[in-house]
């Protein structure tokens, strides 16, 4: 598959803004998505571990982690839509080919994810009193977690297959005869997959620090439980990071010859440094971990660390597709569309920023309040502004629409 062929697969419509915008949005939103996936997997692992434990702290943690997993799966799914969108914009030749060649797995992804999510909700619904009573149907939680790993593996394989255009024809037409069944997964990298999965442990470790701080803010007086969370978070952060680093090294050492130089370049080093900082940060905070908003900053640092990991993942893709195959995602034809570009950014930053800030503030403050929560005047104004912005969006939709269609 030569470079001209890859370029011929591009959509002739072009894209409505500079490709670097889609590249950056793709990396940023993938980072948020994978962070949610890590929280989902990490909380699922801890829920299973706790569900089988007789220890009070573990059982309390298991109950909290089932709730976390339940929300995380929704967040992971909804956040996953954005990187899925952006990858199709500038890497369409690679993403579409990879998908078609494993079509049944792509369809299977949907079915398996539905079954996994339902299994998680079944476990949740059956175990409202997990903290005090024996776990009912723990197999559903185990099945959910295993199936989440399967869907993760399918996504992993699709991402790897898109980096191997030289193999595509052999996969599509082995020995010159077309196999259009889409029944096979053609390529994967166990170390790369394991690296991204094991990151769930340091991430959930960091998450526990945030959870602990939240409980402190809500006036939780069970110091033993708070200490347990701190110990567990530290341990998960440290061990998870060490294992992740080992997997990163193995993955990098096994890179194909034509991008072997990537392994000793700045990106893997930046990733390793970021992971170490994320794991060490709560310890560096010392007593401040229990003070004010400092206790939440490990989550912020972990988010930044995840962005570094996401950037490294993108850098490998770039090194492969541009460095080896000559495909430059940044020279995609631009058919600039100012209205839709402007509308997105205003919606994303102004409306989305305001509304989500309002909702999250209300949810967070309500969780820290005994009895009925009544927001402050400022928060109330944020709410009114949020509602007004959403309504204005609808009004502009009809305004531009009716003017375009009928004026």
């Amino acid at each position, binding site marked *: 598959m030569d470079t001209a062929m890859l370029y011929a697969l591009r959509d002739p419509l072009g894209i409505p803004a500079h490709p670097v915008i889609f590249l950056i949005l793709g990396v940023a939103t993938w980072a948020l998505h994978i962070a949610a996936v890590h929280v989902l997997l990490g909380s699922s692992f801890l829920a299973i571990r706790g569900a089988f434990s007789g220890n009070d702290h573990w059982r309390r943690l298991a109950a909290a982690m089932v709730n976390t997993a339940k929300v995380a799966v929704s967040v992971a799914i909804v956040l996953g839509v954005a990187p899925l969108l952006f990858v199709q914009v500038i890497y369409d030749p690679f993403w579409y080919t990879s998908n078609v060649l494993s079509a049944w797995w792509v369809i299977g992804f949907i079915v398996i994810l539905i079954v996994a999510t339902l299994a998680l909700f079944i476990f949740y619904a059956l175990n409202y009193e997990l903290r005090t009573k024996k776990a009912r149907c723990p197999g559903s939680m185990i099945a959910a977690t295993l199936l989440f790993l399967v869907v993760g593996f399918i996504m992993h394989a699709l991402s790897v297959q898109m980096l191997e255009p030289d193999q595509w024809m052999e996969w599509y037409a082995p020995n010159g005869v077309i196999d259009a069944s889409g029944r096979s997964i053609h390529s994967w990298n166990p170390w790369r997959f394991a690296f991204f999965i094991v990151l769930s442990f340091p991430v959930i470790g960091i998450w526990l620090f945030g959870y602990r701080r939240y409980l402190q803010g809500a006036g939780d007086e069970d110091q033993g439980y708070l200490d347990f969370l701190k110990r567990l978070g530290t341990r998960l952060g440290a061990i998870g990071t060490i294992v992740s680093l080992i997997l990163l090294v193995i993955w990098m050492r096994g890179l194909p010859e034509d991008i072997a130089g990537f392994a000793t370049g700045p990106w893997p080093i930046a990733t390793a440094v970021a992971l170490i900082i994320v794991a060490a940060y709560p310890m560096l905070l010392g007593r401040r971990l229990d003070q004010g908003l400092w206790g939440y900053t490990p989550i912020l640092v972990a988010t930044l660390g995840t962005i570094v990991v996401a950037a490294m993942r993108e850098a490998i893709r770039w090194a492969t597709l541009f460095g080896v195959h000559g495909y430059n995602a940044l020279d995609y034809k631009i*058919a600039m569309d100012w209205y839709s570009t402007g509308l997105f950014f205003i919606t994303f930053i102004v409306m989305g920023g305001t509304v989500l800030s309002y909702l999250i503030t209300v949810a967070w403050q309500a969780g820290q309040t005994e009895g009925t*929560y009544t927001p402050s005047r400022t928060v109330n104004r944020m709410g009114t502004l949020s509602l007004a912005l959403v309504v204005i969006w609808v009004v502009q939709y009809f305004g531009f629409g009716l003017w375009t269609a009928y004026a």
Partner: protein
Amino acid sequence: MDLIGLYPTWYEPGIGSGWVIGIIATIHVLFSHTAVGAAILFGVLAWIGARDNRPELIEFIRKYGLFLLVFSYILGSITGPGIWYSTTVGSPRGISALIHNFVWKWATEWVFFVIEVVGVYMLVYLAGKLDRFTYMKVAAIFAVTSYATMLAIVGILSFMMMPGMEEWKTEGGYLLGFYGDNTFAQLMIRTAFMFTMTAVVGGIVAAGLKDEAFKKWLLRRLAVVGALSAVIGISLYPWYMNSLPEIAHLVAENRMPDYFTPSILIVLGAMLAYFAATLIKPKIVTATVAGIATLAILVLGLWPGETIRESVRKPYIAGQYIYSNQVIGHDVPGMGVKSEIPTLEKVGFKHAHIFWPEEQREIRRDNAAEVGRTLAITACANCHSLSDTGIRPLKNYFPEKADIEGIKTYLHGALSTGNTMYMPRIPLKDDEAEALAVFIAGLTDPEAVKRYEAGDKTALLENRSDEEVK
């Protein structure tokens, strides 16, 4: 190089990739429309509940919300990208056209999704925790946001049928592609059916309510909303049909089965009867009855609607410029898009297709059937099954024991010229037409392929003497 950007083809011999997409799409429509309708119902109920201080309404939202969370938000939010996935593998260039035209609209819709997910969790888990005015505000944001997701997607769905405005083809641009009469006709119909589905699905939860007086109050209102919205939705149907281009009317007249209009009326009648019965006697609504009604809407109501939308856009898959077999069939000067038909006429699929096996670029007697299969997978399989089952089996369109010569003549005369309604123009080089004819003949008569490979002189027109041809 004369290349066209065709991807590999996924061919599912059992039911056909089209059915896979259709099934996932229909399920998603059920979930998503219900989610939007229920969100608006939430908003209204939360408003009344908070305004009149009626805790039973808030309790209903909490209960219905948990059901909604699983039914619509979890399943809806998976089957939504699920449509992307299924169309990606079934029609990569079709989805690509939508993505590249409307990426920012989809990204905008995503912002609303994120707000929706946060909102639904808050409404369910903070019911009774927030003061009533805050709860009303969150409910209102959630309701408008949910409807905005439908606003964002409907123009994209409309573009699958046709660009919003004809001027899009010459001037390009998002607004002309997204907005048009068809966009608003679809929006109004979908809005109406959204309420119908909400009324039916709402019955599943309402059936489980303990407070009989409240249950009756709610079911009666759901019945009124459901019946009214069903009538309004059906009455908007002529507007939708009038917004379609001439070719769609021709296709509808010729391809839609005779039972289509009566079946739509029967579905409407059944829905009205159901809502009338629940209005008069709310007691009949049990979770099972409401569940069956939901399934009935899915199968009887949604399926024909989605089928006609899918059928009348043929032979195009998007924007009236990409054929269902993924070939770009027309210029779109406003977006700098060129038809790929001239390239195919010049070099054929065998040289223009990127994913064409090297061994098959030269067509001989001994590989003609295999090349024909490759051509059939590429140019036909998206709409025609190559086996006995699945979507519109190819073999059904040719007489049994059809001779290769006759099939080849048909392919040249009817397909290469684009003279068959409902079918894309498929230019074939002479040897390609012969190879495809050999493959098609083999579908009903495997011996025909053997005879051809053995060099049967009577198999082809070109091999016959002038006398034989006469």
